[in-house]
């Protein structure tokens, strides 16, 4: 058993050997450097200017409502509506072997659950680019909606990280939407992709997550209306969080595959943006308050809405950004579905071909 697997009580992968242990250590080291870089870059940058601790704590209040806490599904009540499917605009297209890659664009007419000046209404975020890989011919294909992670959102990078070409080669169509406030949806003046997504202001992050769910559901409804079912979601990191959340919200998803998904966003800011030891008790908003306010969109607050065998969880043995215990929490919450643990860390999913093969073998049973 590898050191990483043993420490978290995961059964030994069949071919875990010294090479996998070494790769996991390399992955852990690179994740350590990633966290150091994020702390260096964001610890100060993410502190909102012009806010005081009191107003930031107050930003959590709308989401601590007793009825909402008791029934968090109410936060996503819009999913029960059945509006006409959205019609995308095609901005550009190019041919590839056996198909094409089109850049499409959908509107994102999002209305915040709690209207406040914190919500950044900007024209960039009111539209959603989707890179769409489709096969030639009339045969309907299963479509993977692939969701990128925090600070990603450039289609060419997302397509590489989420292995769009490999999914396409395996016979799936792929849709890569850009999440709110990322990539081309970032407001003018943003210093990095996703800057306006993550904030100590709870209203901003909660509404951004809710908008992401609304947007991904619009993509799903468009694809289903075009006859491209079955449609499922696969997501990496923040995208994995959203994929896991959607699996608790929609009964009609064909599958859900979260990769290295964090389970509680309240725990992440300290991890990602970090605070040196003397400052740990001086985060702008108390951790417990964040946990409670973020609960409305935690996958752990929503029972799995699709059959368990239509889910597949992937985690990294050496992941220091989303440690295995977070992934295991989802695994337990979903009743122990099929999983795959790879050697490496959050930034280094070694053995991607093996990971894809395991996911595909699982999905092929019903798509």
């Amino acid at each position, binding site marked *: 058993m590898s050191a990483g697997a043993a420490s978290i009580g995961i059964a030994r992968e069949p071919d875990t050997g010294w090479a996998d242990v070494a790769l996991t250590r390399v992955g852990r080291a690179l994740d350590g450097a990633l966290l150091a870089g994020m702390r*260096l870059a964001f610890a100060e*940058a993410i502190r909102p200017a012009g806010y005081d601790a009191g107003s930031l704590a107050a930003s959590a209040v709308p989401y601590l409502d007793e009825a909402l806490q008791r029934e968090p599904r109410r936060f996503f009540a819009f999913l029960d509506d059945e509006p006409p499917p959205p019609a995308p605009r095609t901005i550009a297209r190019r041919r590839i072997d056996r198909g094409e890659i089109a850049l499409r664009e959908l509107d994102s007419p999002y209305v915040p659950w709690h209207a406040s000046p914190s919500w950044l209404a900007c024209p960039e975020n009111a539209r959603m680019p989707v890179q769409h890989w489709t096969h030639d011919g009339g045969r309907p294909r299963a479509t993977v909606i692939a969701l990128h992670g925090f600070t990603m959102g450039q289609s060419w990078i997302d397509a590489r990280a989420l292995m769009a070409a490999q999914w396409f080669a395996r*016979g799936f169509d792929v849709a890569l939407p850009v999440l709110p406030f990322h990539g081309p949806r970032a407001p003018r003046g943003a210093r*990095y992709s996703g800057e306006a997504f993550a904030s100590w202001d709870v209203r901003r992050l909660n509404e951004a997550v809710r908008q992401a769910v609304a947007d991904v559901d619009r993509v799903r409804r468009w694809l289903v209306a075009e006859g491209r079912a079955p449609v499922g979601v696969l997501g990496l990191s923040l995208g994995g969080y959203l994929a896991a959340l959607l699996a608790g919200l929609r009964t009609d998803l064909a599958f859900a595959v979260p990769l290295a998904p964090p389970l509680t966003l309240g725990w992440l800011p300290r991890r990602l943006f970090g605070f040196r030891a003397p400052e740990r008790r001086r985060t702008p908003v108390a951790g417990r308050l964040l946990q409670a306010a973020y609960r409305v969109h935690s996958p752990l607050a929503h029972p799995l809405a699709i059959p368990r065998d239509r889910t597949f969880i992937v985690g990294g043995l050496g992941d220091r950004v989303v440690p295995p215990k977070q992934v295991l929490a989802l695994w337990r919450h979903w009743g122990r579905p099929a999983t795959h643990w790879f050697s490496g860390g959050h*930034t*280094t999913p070694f053995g*991607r071909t*093996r990971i894809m093969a395991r996911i595909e073998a699982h999905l092929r049973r019903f798509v």
Partner: protein
Amino acid sequence: MPTAAQTWSAIRFFAGMLVLTVVFVVAHGLTVLHDLVGSEPAGAGP
């Protein structure tokens, strides 16, 4: 005129972004390299 604190914050930000860029490039390179030397063919198709 930016204050010393603002200048220091900007330096930290850009240094951090530089670290992140290097980490992502190295990590992606290693992952792709591992894919290339792996024994399983990528994208075999259904």
